[in-house]
């Protein structure tokens, strides 16, 4: 093979004093060869994006490389001045980021933002820039590129925005594209499309890609070679086949195993007993208020949704963003009031309850939220946060606090955690607190809304294990809302697939995954990254 496009040798990057470790990455060496996709894999805090930021000259303040070199085009990028770096960025190395929602300037038209790349490097005049921007938008497959070029970012979907980002990064035909978690924030079908686009463009233009991700499924889809990182060090480096089929390091194995290697769920249960939760013909429409001259806009979030959940059962609600799955969850806990339909819990009609009566019944359905950082009051001690629910329902403070300790013990944090504040815990630990909080009221039903989506895969696996364990111990009934079919396959007995507010398909997990009846379900299943690979190896 010819000389690599990028060669990282013994790179060490120091973190500012007071960080949780001295080096973001330590003595890291790897190459990116011409025309290959190199995947750098790791969980949050592994330092996987650090090398990329260093070579772009985009390291955060206070973080600087202390040793090693990064050779690109015959020069060491670490020795460049800011001005030299600037010439390189966009021209020879393009970069795309994780959050397409925030990565574009909200106040500038898409076309102008692409044209800026040409402007930054003094290419073409005003009119030519627009023409090139249009050609780029066409190349990345945006529908109606002539309209998209005049659109503001908020008028585009997440996938379209990521396409704009890609168009921008590729504008000057760089030799190297750095993609930092480019599909993490996208829906599964959109993710599949973006991955295909990146693979396609990479082949067509023969460029090299450094692809940073936490998801081994994505790795299986795109990687030629893989570099696995943990705590700022490389634990494994090799070709995609080698690493995926025959991982040498136990951490790599753990990461690969953390993703359900087999998305076919085991057959569970048999006959479904009498339902605990029964939902019939639920409807919910969100209306934006119209004005004197303006028609009101309607969004059908729930459209005639009916299903049931038996005691001790876990029902998964699966769908992409905008499918209405979260609205359904919010209706079940009655944070939202459905327009019509009934929702009965063990015979009590929850739809008609209001005011004091509703408040007295609320303990029966509890919720675990998606974001473990935002869902705990940062100024409330953890024990008190858990005890608040029971206290509001008449339990004495003393007893509620004692129970909080027991619950924290149950979720694996130890009773001593009661006196600590949320910021002292990691994301996974906070989600355990969230689970303890939901359990505190001894509810009949728990609604978990994307409860593991914000967590790293290995932490995700632990939380799912905890839920599984608690289900056995406490015979919990769980309504599990997720966008991630792999997670749903792991924990759910029964699956409901939603799209545009309607139930597309429902059935036992086994039936839905093994013999999906509807085209949309098949589409979702096919979009799961790394699926082909896993089926091959299975």
């Amino acid at each position, binding site marked *: 093979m010819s000389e690599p496009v990028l060669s990282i040798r013994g790179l060490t990057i120091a973190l500012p004093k007071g960080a949780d470790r001295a080096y973001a990455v330590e003595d890291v060496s790897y190459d990116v060869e011409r025309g290959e996709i190199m995947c750098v894999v790791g969980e949050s805090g592994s330092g996987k994006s650090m090398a990329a930021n260093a070579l*772009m000259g985009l390291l955060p303040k206070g973080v600087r490389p202390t040793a090693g070199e990064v050779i690109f085009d015959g020069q060491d990028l670490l020795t460049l001045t800011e001005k030299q770096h600037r*010439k390189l960025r966009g021209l020879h190395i393009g970069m795309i980021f994780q959050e397409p929602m925030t990565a574009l300037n909200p106040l500038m038209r898409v076309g102008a933002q692409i044209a800026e790349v040409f402007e930054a490097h003094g290419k073409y005049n005003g009119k030519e820039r627009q023409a090139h921007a249009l050609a780029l938008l066409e190349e990345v497959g945006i529908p109606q590129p002539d309209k998209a070029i005049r659109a503001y970012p908020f*008028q585009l979907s997440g996938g379209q925005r990521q396409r704009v980002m890609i168009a*921008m990064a590729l504008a000057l035909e760089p030799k190297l594209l750095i993609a930092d978690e480019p599909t993490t924030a996208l829906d599964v079908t959109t993710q599949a499309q973006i991955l295909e686009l990146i693979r396609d463009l990479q082949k067509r233009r023969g460029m090299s890609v450094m692809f940073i991700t936490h998801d081994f499924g994505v790795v299986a889809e795109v990687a030629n070679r893989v570099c696995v990182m943990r705590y700022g060090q490389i634990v494994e480096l090799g070709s995609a086949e080698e690493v995926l089929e025959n991982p040498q390091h136990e951490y790599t194995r753990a990461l690969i195993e953390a993703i359900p290697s087999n998305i076919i769920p085991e057959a569970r249960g048999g006959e479904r007993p009498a339902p605990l939760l029964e939902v019939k013909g639920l409807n919910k429409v969100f209306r934006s208020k119209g004005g004197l001259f303006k028609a009101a806009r309607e969004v059908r979030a729930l459209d005639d949704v009916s299903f049931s959940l038996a005691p001790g059962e876990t029902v998964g609600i699966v769908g992409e963003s905008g499918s209405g799955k979260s609205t359904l969850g919010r209706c079940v806990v009655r944070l939202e009031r459905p327009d019509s339909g009934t929702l009965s819990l063990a015979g009590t009609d929850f739809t008609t309850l209001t005011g004091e009566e509703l408040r007295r019944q609320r303990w029966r359905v509890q919720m675990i939220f998606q974001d473990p950082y935002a869902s705990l009051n940062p100024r409330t001690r953890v024990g008190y946060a858990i005890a608040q629910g029971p206290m509001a329902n008449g339990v004495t403070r003393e007893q509620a606090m004692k129970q909080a300790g027991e619950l924290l013990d149950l979720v694996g944090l130890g009773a001593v955690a009661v006196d600590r504040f949320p910021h002292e815990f990691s994301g996974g630990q906070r989600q355990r607190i969230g689970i303890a909080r939901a359990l505190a009221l001894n509810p009949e039903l728990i609604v978990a809304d994307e409860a593991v989506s914000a967590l790293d895969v290995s932490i995700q696996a632990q939380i799912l294990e905890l839920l599984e364990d608690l289900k056995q111990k406490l015979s919990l009934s769980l309504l599990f809302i997720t966008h991630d079919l792999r997670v749903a396959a792991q924990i759910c007995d029964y699956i409901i697939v939603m799209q545009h507010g309607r139930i597309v398909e429902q059935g036992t997990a086994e039936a839905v995954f093994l013999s999906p009846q509807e085209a949309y379900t098949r589409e979702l299943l096919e979009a799961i990254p790394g699926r082909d690979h896993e089926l091959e190896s299975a």
Partner: protein
Amino acid sequence: MLYARLILMRLLKAVVVLFMIVIFNFFLIQMAPGDPAAILAGEAGATDQEFLRQLRERFGLDQPLYVQLWRYVSGIAMLDFGYSYRQQMPVLDLILARLPATLLLTGTAFVLSLALGILAGSMAAARVKKPSGSIIMALALIFYATPLFWVALMAVVLFSVYLDWLPAYGMYTVGAGLDGFALVLDVAKHLVLPATTLALFFMAIYTRMTRASMLEASQQDYVKTARAKGLSPRVIQRRHILRNALLPIITLAGLQAGQMVGGAILTETVFAWPGIGRLMYEALMQRDYNLLLGIFFFSAALVIVFNIITDLVYRLADPRIKEGS
């Protein structure tokens, strides 16, 4: 088209709000102890009941309340704000005579504070953690914390009395009989001190706000995108950071602009500037209710007008608003 509709909508709403203000004003004067006739009579030293009755009849105060209300409201609808008996002039003429002076003063101060504030704020944001940036912020803090009248007095002492560069009071040199360019220059000279004094406080606020807002914007993902494109720091600062940081400033500027009629009482008094602020002060001292209410109405109307303008500017600045509303 969208804008024309929007402006029409807003104007309709504004008329409703103004109508409510007029009614509120009317009842405000009803609640004041004694009616205007009694006050006038009292000031004239007359206690004669017959004289009072005549006065009441002349002003229509002997009519039932709803008739009075109707007369008052329909009067205002035809821009008749009544008569100031103290000044022996229609209220409208009094206000219109003073309005240009006030608008000149507050308008200049507004533009000055906004321009210099944003400039100083962006300079401070670009020089964060550097001595020059800290100096800007320290100055802003001093101007923010110092009482307006004290700055005004000190400015007079320094620039007028001590240095004799600028006139200390008034709007033009009395009796000079200037015209054309000489008059403009004369007014401009008189304007410097009061306008600067008035501008300092808001300039300090804009400086602090621009800096904070820009520092926040510079942390956003799109700034990293802009850097990854290879754009120069100057372009990033102006096109990506400042533009986004200006949105909250527009809101604040709209609030300040609404204060333009009533907000300069202190400055006008210190510098003897012949504006609405002083007119209001005099009206208050002399219990000239008609005049006071007229000024209230004009201030309220100006607040509403600037609210509408702010809304439109915000829409121009932020494309997301259009679809959201």
